[in-house]
């Protein structure tokens, strides 16, 4: 486990020591800082979050409520704290590469199921871009929703509809792009890549902690399911 993950886990444990009111106050700020820290150094963000949490626990031990300790304008303070942190492009590149990787794997799965060998690189890139925009929009959405009492299921639903519409629109637009770049990937290579992904995903499942495993079950089942369908088709 790397140090950032360790701090996040320690944060989850220590947070339980806060009483209900203090926890609610802290968690609102925690979520806000985590989503606002787009492009920022995650390790530094988690370090400050832990520091504040430990101090709030100390305050609570002396019967000082979190709001009285930290102040009435958590959003302003959080913004100041974040503005002092440097940007981290390495983390960001990692995100970009994982999105492109994800889209590539999806395309290869699609090829295996339909037994196709063509791969349109323009489609892969445009879909990656769409996913990137969607991730960014979700982050911004949560950010705008913080420290307000106006959140509603309705608005969240509307937001999801807008995101999905943009996605569908993007997929229509990409077929009309003047430049398409097809490459040929033999089915055996696709299978090779899929098997490597499967081994990687299963290995990761056993490496992850119990909490994180839950989130990993779905993509793993998805991979196994797609492989099964592909295999049936192949045979």
């Amino acid at each position, binding site marked *: 486990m790397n140090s950032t993950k360790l*701090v996040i886990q*320690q944060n989850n*444990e*220590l947070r339980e*020591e806060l009483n209900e009111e203090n926890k609610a106050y802290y968690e609102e700020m925690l979520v806000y800082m985590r989503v606002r820290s787009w492009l920022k150094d995650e390790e530094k963000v988690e*370090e*400050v979050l*832990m*520091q*504040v*949490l*430990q*101090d*709030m*626990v*100390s*305050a609570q*031990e002396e019967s000082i409520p979190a709001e*009285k*300790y*930290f*102040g*009435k*304008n*958590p959003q*302003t*303070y959080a913004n*100041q*704290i974040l*503005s*002092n*942190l440097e940007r981290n492009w390495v983390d960001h590149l990692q995100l970009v590469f994982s999105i492109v990787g994800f889209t590539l794997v999806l395309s290869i799965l699609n090829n295996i199921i339909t037994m196709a060998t063509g791969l349109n690189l323009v489609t892969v890139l445009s879909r990656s871009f769409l996913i990137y925009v969607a991730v960014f929009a979700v982050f911004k959405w949560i950010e705008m929703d913080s420290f307000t009492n106006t959140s509603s299921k309705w608005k969240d639903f509307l937001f999801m509809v807008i995101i999905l519409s943009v996605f569908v629109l993007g997929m229509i637009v990409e077929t009309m792009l003047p430049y398409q770049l097809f490459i040929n990937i033999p089915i055996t290579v696709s299978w090779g890549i899929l098997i490597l992904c499967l081994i990687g995903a299963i290995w990761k499942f056993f490496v992850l902690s119990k909490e994180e495993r839950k989130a990993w079950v779905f993509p793993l089942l998805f991979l196994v399911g797609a492989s099964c369908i592909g295999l049936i088709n192949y045979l």
Partner: protein
Amino acid sequence: MKKTQLLKGVLEGCVLLIIKEKEVYGYELVQQLKKSGFEEIVGGTVYPILQKLEKNALTTSVKKPSSDGPDRKYYQITEKGREYCDDFVQNWKELESSVHHLID
């Protein structure tokens, strides 16, 4: 005029003066400020100051074991910080006497 506005430029120096006395962690520092008469100071305004001081190499930090979860971040003053403190005290004294002069 709001007191907090007046305080803005001074607070950094005050925080540093406390750290100069002994190494502290965030909560300790806020309590120390309150004890010294800065009763309206809240943690939220102190963390950005601590970040700035460290960024400008006026302080450094070390991690020490804590009873509240993992290791805690303690701030220590640097040589540069000491010099800054001396300047701050000097400037403050001059400013204080000028303002005093006007008030009287």
